């Protein structure tokens, strides 16, 4: 058998190896992306309570920047920006809820007592200090 034939009959050509490598890298990259996106989904959730009842859940990790009214209590509006949420344009006497500003870390809360609305962050992402509750 000549060298030429050997080359032709070779099971793997150099070129094939290259293809395999490229495909392997692509598939690995796809997996990594899949894993990352899997982890991110549902990682940080804002729970909105009205009168003690959970009325709305928002996945902050995937939420678009937006403003919205709360159906159950129209005195209250929220703004979502860069994975964080805050009270805006609230109709109440003290506006304490708006003073809280944007929240987006585990266990953070903002309350609008006059309107009986409460938003709480639930996150499986550990924050720096990992606090369960704030007293004060």
């Amino acid at each position, binding site marked *: 058998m000549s060298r030429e034939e050997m080359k032709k009959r070779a099971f793997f050509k150099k070129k094939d190896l290259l293809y395999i490598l490229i495909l392997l890298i692509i598939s*690995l990259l796809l997996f990594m992306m*899949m894993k990352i996106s899997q982890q991110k989904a549902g990682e940080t959730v804002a729970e909105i309570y009205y009168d003690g009842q959970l009325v709305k859940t928002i996945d902050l990790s995937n939420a678009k920047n937006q403003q919205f009214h709360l159906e159950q209590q129209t005195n209250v509006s929220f703004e979502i920006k860069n994975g964080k949420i805050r009270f805006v344009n609230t109709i109440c006497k003290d506006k304490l809820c708006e003073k*809280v500003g944007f929240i987006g870390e585990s266990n953070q*809360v903002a309350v609008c*007592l006059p309107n009986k609305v409460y938003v709480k962050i639930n996150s499986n992402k550990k924050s720096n200090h990992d606090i369960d*509750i*704030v*007293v*004060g």
Partner: protein
Amino acid sequence: MQRKKVFNWLITILILLVIFGVSLGITLLLSKEPPPPTTKVVQGVNKQDTLMDTLLTQLVYSEDGKVITEKVTKLLATLEDHTSLYKSQSDISKINSNAGLSEVKPIKVNSDTFYLIKKAKEYSKQSDGLFDISIAPITILWGITSEHPTVPSEEQIKEKLSLVNYKKITIDEKNKAVKLTAPYMALDLGAIAKGYACDLIRDEYEKSGVSSALTSFGGSSILSMGTKPDGSDFSIGIRDPFGGSNDTAGTLIARNKIVSTSGAYERYFEKDGKRYHHIFDPRTGYPAESGLSSVTVISDSGILTDYLSTALFIGGKEAVIKQLNNDDYSVIAIDNEKNVYISDKIKSNFTVASDKGFKLV
């Protein structure tokens, strides 16, 4: 030749599929949840209610969490009915509206109301008037909880201050009845009711066999019971008096304790560039200016922590230093310069937020 090429491609694809499968397996294996622990994990029940003009949030780890939290909500609604300053049929409203009427006998009250008033009078005496349960005429004058708080005139404050005197509360132990002896006097249990509510909540949890719970009443009083189901401690952030409501000046581990904080930031209004907060000094009739920005007290008794945090806030640094190392309670006080005063016995349970400029002294 053509067939061979096709065959080679098929083999290549097959190999790729195998690689695909193996990497899928590895990924799944890596991302697999940790195996479930052998003991059954109890799901926490999280319940929020607006009660006594504030928010009650209960986190209870128990099989019967739903029933227990409902029970506690009802219990506190009843307490509110008896002790509210704003409900016309409450014990407190009846006592206040009959203040100074000599023809009226002491008002019979519910046992919780009686206990609260009796304790509050004792505390008023014990604190030498730093804390006075009959401060209500002053708080009402300033309208701090109303829509339009105002800075009253000197004369107005002087006039109302003359009505503030816990010694003029008559307590009839036998009949569980209370009377205010001077006209226009008024009681407001707001400064101790939330802490006392935590005592009632703890008793109810214990009675129901709850061994793990974290419950906050208005954010200013917190009940911490046991540990989380995974055995780790609940971590309690002490609010940063100079930051927002989610910022902290330090972190505390307090197992089976009630923690209460009084701070100038809770409720306030601004007038002509000056800030007026809601904790009034019974000696002056003005918001307390003691150089402290917040006082936190940790103890087994919620009524005590709620009272002491207020009294020490008004009393200032000297009062805090005097009470710093007591057997029955611990104290964390923060002054306006971010110095943190802390009882020796809880030093090891407290992590100060030095990155924000807070420092232990």
